[in-house]
């Protein structure tokens, strides 16, 4: 290939940044418009999941005391943040693979990192209404008091980023859409049922709580919960570190998988 006379082979950093930003904006719009019928449904389902989770378990659990309610409501927030990244994004990727638009998107002349960040931004957009709904419902129904710390901002962002990167690593790495869907279904079961997101970690059997020391989910909940409540749990430096390590691993895998040529 011969380089066009108008476009120099190496762009200046400013032009690369502005080119990346333009690609990001375009992709964000493209994905948003391309699935414009899907996003309202996703947002509504996030709201329902967030609020429903708090109310639903409140219905099932025989006696809901203040601590149970605080666990449930902060757990719903964590759940929204994790599920958008870890479940919704691989499912969207699987959907694109099934419909055949996956390769099409990859063929577009834009940086793949811009595509990734665009879909993460959409994930955040989808997650926020669910989080607000979960906290709103919890404060109304159970009269709990939340105290929001400044650590909420980094905790939320790191949780979402880690979940999204893990989700996209899975979505891109697994070629068969059905396998991805299964994986995410099992992921939902594991996160909701066997992870100390909405109940104290002490209720888990010993080996499982030990396992969660090394997985990201427990630490995500610790960080988010300690940033929203007082005296329920304490987040330590270890949680930040574990989560950071997982984020780096997921980013690396995503980068390698997305960067490979088919």
């Amino acid at each position: 290939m011969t380089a066009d006379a108008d476009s120099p082979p190496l762009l200046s950093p400013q032009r690369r940044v502005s080119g990346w930003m333009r690609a990001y904006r375009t992709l964000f719009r493209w994905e948003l418009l391309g699935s414009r019928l899907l996003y309202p449904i996703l947002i509504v389902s996030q709201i329902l999941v967030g609020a429903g989770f708090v109310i639903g378990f409140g219905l099932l659990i025989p006696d809901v005391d203040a601590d149970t309610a605080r666990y449930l409501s902060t757990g719903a927030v964590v759940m929204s943040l994790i599920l958008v990244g870890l479940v919704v994004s691989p499912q969207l990727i699987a959907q694109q693979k099934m419909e055949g638009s996956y390769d099409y998107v990859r063929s577009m002349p834009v940086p793949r990192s811009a595509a990734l960040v665009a879909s993460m931004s959409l994930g955040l957009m989808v997650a926020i209404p669910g989080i607000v709904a979960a906290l709103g419902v919890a404060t109304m129904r159970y009269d709990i008091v939340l105290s929001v710390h400044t650590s909420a901002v980094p905790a939320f962002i790191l949780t979402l980023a880690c979940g999204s990167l893990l989700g996209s690593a899975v979505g891109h790495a697994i070629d068969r859409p059905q396998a991805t869907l299964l994986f995410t279904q099992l992921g939902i079961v594991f996160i909701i049922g066997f992870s100390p997101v909405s109940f104290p970690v002490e209720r888990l059997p010993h080996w499982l709580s030990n396992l969660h020391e090394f997985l990201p989910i427990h630490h995500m909940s610790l960080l988010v919960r300690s940033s929203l409540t007082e005296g329920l749990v304490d987040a330590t430096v270890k949680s930040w570190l574990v989560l950071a390590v997982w984020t780096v691993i997921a980013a690396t895998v995503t980068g390698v998988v997305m960067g490979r040529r088919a």
Partner: protein
Amino acid sequence: MTVTTDVIRVRSGSRFWADAYTSMLRFESRNLRTYLTIGLVIQLALGAGMTLMYGFYFGDLDSAQQTFLVTGIPTLALIPIGFVMVPNAIMEHKLHDTYDYVWSLPVPRSSSAMATFTIFALLGIPGMVVALLIAWVTYDVDLVVSWSLVPAVLFTSSIGASVGYAVGHVVPQPRVISLITNIVMFLVLLFSPIVVAIEQFPGWWADAHHVLPFWHMSVVIRAALTDGLVTTPVPISYGVLAIWGAISGVAAAMIVGRRR
């Protein structure tokens, strides 16, 4: 090569239908074999998993609450097969463009439909039994198993499969199907009095469950596993389930019988 076309025999009759049915049973079970195996695994994981999971969420339970939990598990293990796997299996056909192919096969459509239905109605049962055993062992409650467990399970499983079959055929878009199945699971796992007493629910929501099939499914199965725990009339639950089966049967028949 000469082809004689003077005799065109329209094949029909019960013998032909039965042959077509067994062929379609073979066709579908081989076609879906990976999916069916995975489904069985998921069901076991879900059945056993929900037992433990509700335990984590609920904290300490008294013995009546434990019995409710254990006897609700079989229903929970059956529901995903009918309400989730059946529509998804039909969606698979649509996505792989084998949907029209299956209808083009020289068999009565009713035999094809019955074959799918049979596979899924029976598929749920082994997983359900194991899930029940796991729950029973985990909580060690007293169960009084009666012979009516057999019709209760067959009935519940069949209703689930027929509603799922109707949804799979009536709803054209795969995305909408997966949305519906997700909502159903959410509804069943969190908002249904399957593992807890219905009295624990607010009045209007309990009323809704007198119309929806899920609570009735748990009633007929719980009645066959316990003595005196079910206080509502069991025949009414059978009746409501039968209505659901009839509606979905008619809906499925209309779609399946339609020519394009």
